[in-house]
C-alpha cells in the first residue's frame, strides 16, 4: 500500500517486525509535498518509533483480522470480552488498553483487532453518546457564558461540558479528543 493510505490502526511490516499505527498525521512542510508522520508500536516488544514517510512511499501491510466482541467488564488487571460469534470469553491486560477502557460501555459490542490470536487494538466509534452520571448543579450567579464544568459519565470517563448539562442527560463525546460535542435529546 501507499504510505498516504495508512490510517490509525493499520498494521505495517517495518524491517521484518509488525507495527501498529497509533498516530498518523499528514504534514506539508513549507512549500513541500505531503508527508505522513507516524507513531508506530512494535507488536512484539512494544518499542515505539516515529517514522516519517512520503505519501507516495510504498509500505507493506500486515494481515490482521476483526473480531466482534461484547465488552463485559473491566477489573484492576483485565478487560473481559466475549466473542459474539463463538461466545468464547477472553481477557486482555488493562495496561494495554488503558486509553480505551473508559470509552467502552458494558454490554456493547466492539471490534477487536487480532494479530496472530493476539488482541492488538479495540475500535471505538469516533463519536459516542454517554449518559452523565455525576454532575454538580451550576452555582447560582455563575452566568459567565461558555463556562465549563467537569462531569462523569457511566463508564467513569470525565468530560468538560458547558454548565447547563445536568445529571441524567445524554451527551455526545469525541472519543479521540475526549471533548464534549453536544447535548443529545432523547
Amino acid at each position: 500500500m501507499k504510505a498516504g493510505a495508512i490510517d490509525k490502526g493499520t498494521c505495517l511490516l517495518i524491517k521484518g517486525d509488525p507495527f501498529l499505527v497509533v498516530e498518523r498525521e499528514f504534514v506539508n512542510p513549507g512549500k513541500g509535498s505531503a508527508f505522513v508522520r507516524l507513531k508506530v508500536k512494535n507488536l512484539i516488544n512494544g518499542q515505539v518509533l516515529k517514522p516519517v514517510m512520503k505519501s507516495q512511499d510504498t509500505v507493506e501491510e500486515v494481515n490482521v483480522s476483526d473480531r466482534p466482541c461484547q465488552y463485559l467488564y473491566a477489573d484492576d488487571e483485565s478487560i473481559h470480552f466475549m466473542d459474539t460469534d463463538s461466545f468464547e470469553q477472553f481477557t486482555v491486560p488493562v495496561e494495554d488498553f488503558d486509553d480505551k477502557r473508559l470509552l467502552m460501555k458494558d454490554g456493547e459490542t466492539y471490534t477487536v483487532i487480532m494479530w496472530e490470536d493476539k488482541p492488538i487494538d479495540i475500535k471505538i466509534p469516533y463519536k459516542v453518546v454517554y449518559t452523565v452520571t455525576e454532575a454538580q448543579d451550576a452555582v447560582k450567579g455563575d452566568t459567565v457564558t461558555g463556562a465549563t464544568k467537569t462531569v462523569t459519565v457511566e463508564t467513569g470517563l470525565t468530560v468538560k461540558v458547558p454548565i447547563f448539562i445536568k445529571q441524567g442527560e445524554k451527551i455526545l463525546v469525541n472519543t479521540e479528543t475526549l471533548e464534549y460535542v453536544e447535548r443529545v435529546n432523547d
Partner: protein
Amino acid sequence: MGAMTFETARQRADVIMEIRRFFSGLGYLEVDTPLLSPHLIPESSIEVFASTLLRPDGYRKDLYLVPSPEVWMKPLIAQGYGSIFQICKCFRNGEQQGRQHNSEFTMLEWYTVDSGSEENIGLTEELFRRLIPLGLPEYAYPPFRRLSVDQACEEYAGIVPTDYPEAEDLAEAARGLSLSPAAEETWESVFNRIFVQFVEGALPQDKPLVLYDYPARIPTLAAGRGDGRHSDRWELYAGGFECANCFAEETDYRRVESYFRQEAKAKAASPVPHAVNPRWTEMYRREHPRLSGVAMGVDRLIALTLGKTSIDGVIFFPLCDILDE
C-alpha cells in the same frame, strides 16, 4: 473537533479587528480581491479546488478557489497601490482536516513595498506585541528567535543539505541517516524528508522561531540570496504551529517567467490541474517596487492567542465536523 464557544468567537472577532487596526494604522490599504479566479500561480506543493462558471447562454469556464490572494494582490502592487493587506478565506485541497488544517481557512496576507524580508520580521514582531493584551501566552512573545535552515539542519539532523548540491549526493547522505529516499528522488523531496524527520519536530518552542534562508533548490517566487544556495524567505514557528511565511518577492521577470514555466509543467500532472495565465508575469517587465510579502494563518494565530496547540474549536463549523470524519 470541539464546538466553538462564545468566548472563542469573541476572541476571533477581537484578533481580526486588532489586525485591521494594526495595518490600517500603519497606512496599509485593505483590499478584498476575488476568491474565484480563472487562473492561479502554479505551486506544485499545493492542491486546489476547481469549479465551473455557467452562463445562461451555455458558456462554461473553469474557475478555481484561490489558495492565497497573491494572484490578485501582486497585480495591485504593480499598479502602484503601495503596501496592502487582506484578510480572506483561502482554499487548499488534499490536506488532512483537523488539528492543523481546515481546507477552507482564514489568511492574513500583506505586502510591504520598498522592503525586504528582514523588515517584515520586525513588523510581525510588532503585530504579536499588539496581540499580547488579547491573551498571547509568554512563549509566543516577541522578540522572535532566529535560526537559519542550514543551522537547524546541522543541529538536529547533523548535516547541511545545501552542502550537497546534487540530488543523488543528498539522497546518499539521507541514507546515512537511515532514511529511505527513492531512486531518482528530487533534491527538494530528499531535503523535506530530512527536514520533517529530524528538524521540524525538534525546533525549540520556548519562543517563536523565525527559520530563514531556505535552500534555493526549493522552487518558489522568493528572491535569491545572491549566493546561489539560499532563497530570501522565512517561516515563523510559534506554539507548535507553522504560523506564517515571508518572501522577499522575486521581481526579476526572467526568473519569475522561468518559475512559471517550470511549476506550470509540474502542476499539470497534479490531481487538480489548473489554468495558468502566462501573461500574469508581464507586470515584472515594467518597473516594479522592491517587495516583501507575508502570509499568516489567522486561525492558527487565534489558537495561539488562546494558548491552544490546535485550530480545533477556533473555526466555525470545521470541515471534519461537517463531514463527520
